[in-house]
């Protein structure tokens, strides 16, 4: 099911009554989600991503704008008529019901022509349970299960209705690190198998990047960028997106363009033909630093962190107020006891931004 959001806006009255202006949670969203894809809705907490999800789901009504599922305008439909399945951050399992009863709950609500017989229900429940591999635990109560298992039950309960759209609100944030990795693979697999258009909300960029077909980056109610994870990472539209994606984070310098060349402090690091003289904000991805004794950029060496496959270098540079991080391969390890390290920058990994607006300056 293709999902289209058209100028979707949500305003709340300000809780502080003295301030008359509304809080804009979601501001004029327009984008299209292709059928059968897994979409990561990504942004820092409070950026409006959960509100967006709730509006798609039908739990909240938009202030203006429309939502389309395929050719159907669902903006005014109540949640239960939209055919969506939702998994909540806390899983929202009914504590007094067993796994089987929890998964069956949505089916018992179907009315009229959609009504299923007892056998059909049992079959659907079992199918959904098998899909998430909890068919061994059908008679347990949620309190007798681990977080990961509860999560699976929640997914099964969302799937059992055969929804047109599956929505996941921070599905992994209540799990420990190991389970999180495992579960996100699981979500990927289930989504592939069912082919249901899936949107999941997260504030963890790594999570979103690793399993999404597309990511949508939001900031303060505004949509910043939408695209395939690698594209967004390689080609961020603004400084926020660049900073939000990637671990270790992008290093940000104050730079100057002078005579077609880019200067970081005293170091002339790159040719930027065609750009007028101006100040710029320069973002360099950790993998954009290439250690080279003849490199154009000299940094004070602070620490070398060996992480096995590659090595992370923590260094400092006068044009950057915080320590910069570079990922290099182990062969390029600087000599022990060296006080400085020199880098050459890979132009593809260097992004220039307007210091005022944060917008990308393209070469």
């Amino acid at each position, binding site marked *: 099911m293709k999902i289209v959001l058209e100028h979707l806006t949500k305003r709340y009255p300000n809780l502080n009554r003295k301030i008359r202006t509304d809080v804009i949670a979601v501001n004029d969203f327009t984008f299209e989600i292709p059928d059968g894809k897994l979409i990561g809705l990504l942004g820092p907490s409070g950026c409006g991503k959960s509100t967006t999800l709730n509006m798609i789901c039908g739990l909240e009504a938009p202030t203006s704008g429309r939502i389309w599922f395929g050719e*159907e305008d669902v903006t005014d439909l109540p949640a*239960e008529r939209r055919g969506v399945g939702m998994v909540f951050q806390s899983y929202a399992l009914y504590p007094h019901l067993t796994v089987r009863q929890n998964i069956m709950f949505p089916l018992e609500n179907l009315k009229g022509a959609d009504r299923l017989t007892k056998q059909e229900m049992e079959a659907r429940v079992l199918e959904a349970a098998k899909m998430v591999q909890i068919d061994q635990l059908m008679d347990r109560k949620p309190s007798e299960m681990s977080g990961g298992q509860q999560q699976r039950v929640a997914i099964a309960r969302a799937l059992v209705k055969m*929804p047109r759209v599956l929505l996941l609100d921070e599905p992994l944030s209540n799990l420990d690190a190991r389970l999180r990795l495992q579960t996100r693979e699981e979500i990927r697999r289930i989504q592939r198998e069912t082919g249901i258009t899936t949107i999941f909300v997260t504030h963890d960029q790594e999570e979103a990047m690793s399993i999404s077909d597309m990511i949508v980056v939001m900031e303060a109610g505004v949509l910043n960028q939408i695209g395939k994870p690698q594209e967004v990472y390689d080609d961020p539209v603004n400084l926020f997106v660049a900073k939000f994606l990637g671990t270790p984070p992008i290093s940000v310098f104050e730079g100057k363009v002078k005579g077609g060349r880019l200067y970081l402090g005293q170091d002339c690091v790159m040719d930027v033909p065609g750009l007028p003289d101006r100040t710029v904000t320069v973002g360099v991805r950790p993998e954009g630093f290439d250690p080279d004794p003849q490199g154009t950029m000299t940094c004070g060496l602070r620490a070398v962190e060996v992480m096995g496959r590659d090595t992370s270098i923590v260094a400092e540079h006068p044009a950057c107020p915080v320590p910069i991080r570079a990922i290099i391969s182990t062969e390029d390890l600087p000599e022990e006891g060296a006080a400085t390290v020199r880098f050459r920058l890979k132009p593809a990994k260097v992004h220039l931004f307007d210091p005022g607006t944060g917008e990308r300056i393209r070469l």
Partner: protein
Amino acid sequence: MSAQNGNAAGGDGKRAVSTRTEVRRHAVLSQIKPWLYLLPALIFLGIFMVYPLFDVLIYSVEEGYNSASQTYFGIGGYNYAYVLRDPFFLQALKNTFILVIITVPVSTGIALLISLGLHSIGRLKELFQTIFFLPYVTNTLAVGLVFMILFKKTPYSDGFMNLLITAVGGTAVDFIDGPYWAKMFVMCFYTVWVVLPFKILILTSALASVDENLYKAARVDGTSSFRIFTRITLPMISPMIFYLIITGFIGAFKAYSDEVAIFGTDLNAAGMNTIVGYVYDMLYGDSGGYPSYAAAAALILFAIVLTITCINLLISRKNVHYT
């Protein structure tokens, strides 16, 4: 399981159009529905709480109200003046005040002692707790009869209490039909017996909720038991003690059925009436049919209780240590 087969909510355009009106109806319904849920409560509270509240004020100022013809002479404070001059009311007022002044401190004190005792023991704690709570679930009218029998002196028998009194060298007294102070003693004793379970329960759970680490810390510092009690235990449970005192005052001022249990329904004859008893006597029974006097007496009681509660709250605000 694919997204395309068996769409539970249907995806065809026709259905989307037909839902439009449904949506509007849904919106209207969602504003009405909460009131439907509240309707039973609103009806009952309206008829039996809100309306009577205003009605009782009206009754209390209608002079010479006749319940048979439902007529009255005029509006004024005569009912209050009558009640305040009525010797039965003054007797009831006196009885109630004595009862309050004796039973509230005594019951709170005993409850505190017993709770401390319960808190300090290990074995049999639950058994004692259960026994002590028993009076709470008994019909006070029924058990009051037992007290009456225990304390009563009849021509056939001096009764159990007098047996004890004479055994220690005292003289037998009729506690039920005898001197005023003897009757007052039974009344207070029974009231304490009846109200203690609740107070013990509340104080025991208050004591149990004090952080054990505070005691441990104090003991490590070599604090004496007495100091631990006055400086840690008492301040920590002081909100609950004050709560019990306030509710104790309110409850004791409304004393009535315990008195009926011991002295019978004609409390005026026994000289043991209470303010609430006076209200009911004015309303109904042999002396009844005067809702205006009853209303005035009830409002006087309400004013007294309100004043005392406010004083209590003021004192507690100054002294209670809130955690």
